């Protein structure tokens, strides 16, 4: 287990490093001049002052040197400073994180509950029409852009019926609509994948055997089918959490909330590269962490993997892709 863990952590670190390098390569290939952005629209800056600023920011050094210096800083938790505000990127992101976490967290819980409920209900219901209706929902949820979902909810709940505030600040009431908006995508994805997975499991022989034992529908569907069907759904987690981050960008724009999304939108618009890179790294870190957690969870939940590991005694160290390739 320890070797497995070490292998997976190393792999995660590699992905993070590569994401850093990739974002550096992409962002600093930019033709624009970060020093000019930092100096702002202030026309009184002389070319000499600009050159001095460039020197201060290390922009006159060769690209490789800049990369190494920045990477060294990143390893010590220093992601540079915002070109717009001059604040350190880490504290900027740190301050914006809590409101985003609240919306995204609530949205994920809501989405998971809705999606699971939908899939289970669609699978166990004896009524064909109900099943068809339920299974028709996820494709709809995937197709409607989340900014439209947000605006629809606003229109109904805030303007037409006037039951919830239109601006998503302050108190739990302001959290409801943004969280509901962000929940639609995960709910649709989980519902779709889980329903299909349950359908597939229902056709398997062990279900016949369970029924032949005299097991009733609840026991068959929950004890046997749901547990097996949930495993492939778990692999969606990384994708879903990544989607929450980008969902937050849209939701915060629609509901005028402060948070990570607002910062990202502003940073891209202003070409505030250190901030953009910081957010990209955060996204990659979240993805890597969630996938690591899912992998560990899988080891606990799926005995087949645990057995394979125990008897083979090898870490699934796939950093160089050598294992598991038959």
């Amino acid at each position, binding site marked *: 287990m320890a070797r497995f863990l070490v292998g997976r952590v190393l792999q995660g670190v*590699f*992905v*993070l490093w*590569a*994401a850093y390098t*990739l*974002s550096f390569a*992409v*962002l600093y*290939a*930019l033709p624009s001049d970060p020093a000019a952005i930092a100096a702002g629209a202030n026309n009184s800056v002389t070319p000499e002052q600009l050159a001095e600023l460039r020197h201060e920011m290390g922009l006159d050094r060769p690209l490789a040197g800049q990369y190494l210096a920045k990477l060294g800083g990143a390893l010590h938790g220093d992601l540079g400073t915002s070109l717009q505000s001059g604040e350190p990127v880490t504290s900027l992101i740190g301050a914006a994180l809590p409101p985003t976490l609240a919306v995204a967290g609530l949205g994920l819980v809501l989405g998971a509950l809705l999606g699971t409920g939908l899939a289970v209900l669609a699978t166990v219901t004896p009524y064909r029409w109900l099943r068809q209706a339920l299974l028709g929902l996820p*494709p*709809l949820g*995937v*197709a*409607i*852009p*989340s*900014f*439209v979902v947000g*605006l*629809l909810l*606003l*229109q109904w709940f*805030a*303007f037409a019926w006037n039951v919830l505030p*239109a601006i998503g600040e302050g108190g739990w009431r302001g959290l409801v609509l943004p969280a509901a908006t962000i929940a639609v995508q995960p709910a649709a994805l989980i519902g779709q994948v889980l329903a299909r997975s349950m359908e597939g499991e229902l056709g398997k022989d062990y279900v016949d055997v369970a029924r032949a034992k005299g097991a009733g529908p609840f026991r068959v569907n929950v004890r046997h089918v749901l547990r097996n069907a949930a495993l492939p759904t778990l692999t969606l987690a990384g994708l879903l959490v*990544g*989607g929450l*981050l*980008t969902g937050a*960008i*849209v939701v915060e*724009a*629609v509901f005028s909330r402060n948070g990570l999304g607002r910062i*990202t*939108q502003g*940073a*891209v*618009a202003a*070409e505030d*590269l250190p901030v*953009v*890179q910081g*957010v*990209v790294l955060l*996204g*990659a870190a979240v*993805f*890597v962490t969630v996938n690591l957690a899912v992998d560990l969870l899988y080891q606990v939940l799926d005995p087949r993997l645990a057995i394979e590991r125990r008897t083979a005694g090898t870490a699934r160290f796939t950093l*160089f*892709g050598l294992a598991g390739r038959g």
Partner: protein
Amino acid sequence: MSVTDLARPAGERRPGPGTARRPGLPRAVLRSLAVLLRHPGAALSALWIVLVVAAAVAPSLFAPGDPLAIDPAARLQGPSLDHLFGTDRLGRDLFGETVHGTGRTLPAAALATVVGLGAGTLLGLLAGFLRAATDLVIMRLIDVLLSIPGLLLALMLVAVLGEGDTLDVGIAIGVAAVASTARVMRAEVLRVSESGFVEAARTGGARWTRVVLRHVLPNSLGPVWVLTLLLFGEAILGVTTLSFLGFGAQPPTPEWGALVSSGRDFLGSAWWLSLLPGAVVALTVLAANRVSHAVEERTGRR
């Protein structure tokens, strides 16, 4: 009577009337038409796609005149027969703007699809067929691309490419889609390469170029074709989302996402300004997904 008679080999199995023997494109087209007729949902979806594409190519067919023409007498009017989608705060006809917006949104989404599919398919084919070191490098690259949430990756590229042009946004969305396409293609190539007929072709003395071009590639493209429309739908979502956030087409250029964005200030009083273009986006994505699903059902599982 012998076993030979019983199992009825050979000639007695005539092809049914539905299976014309001539292979090739016409049969495929006829077959797809027949499939669509049997699934009215998919047929309507396909019709919608055709209409939207037509609107992108020749918007004047649907909405003659200048979409940006201002009519101060007809400001913020609700949907009516004169103005199907109502009018905005300057009295512009929203239907006309939406129709003309198609010509911005669709080409960007199509570009994204071409970039995502083209690069992804190539990478997947290389990784799956050459294996070894090539596979290793490509797979690591894909891992990294996958670790960055798609929209964020696109936003990063937009920050570099500049925010002025919808086509730049299309390229950004396309790059964000490369990783998943490459993964699908690689898995498919690996699966096909293991199958008996590829081994039979090798035993038959085929050179590796012949194996790839005649056997592996045609048989692995199936899922990629299914992906095309799915990806197109996702690209529309991506492009409109980015322009909703203010990247891409700038007002007053009509573009679906930008229209929704500029209408949202009037949500309480003139809901149609943002919600009707939004509905068009949703319908188009839904239609693309539906048709893709129908194609998958037809061809995907043998």
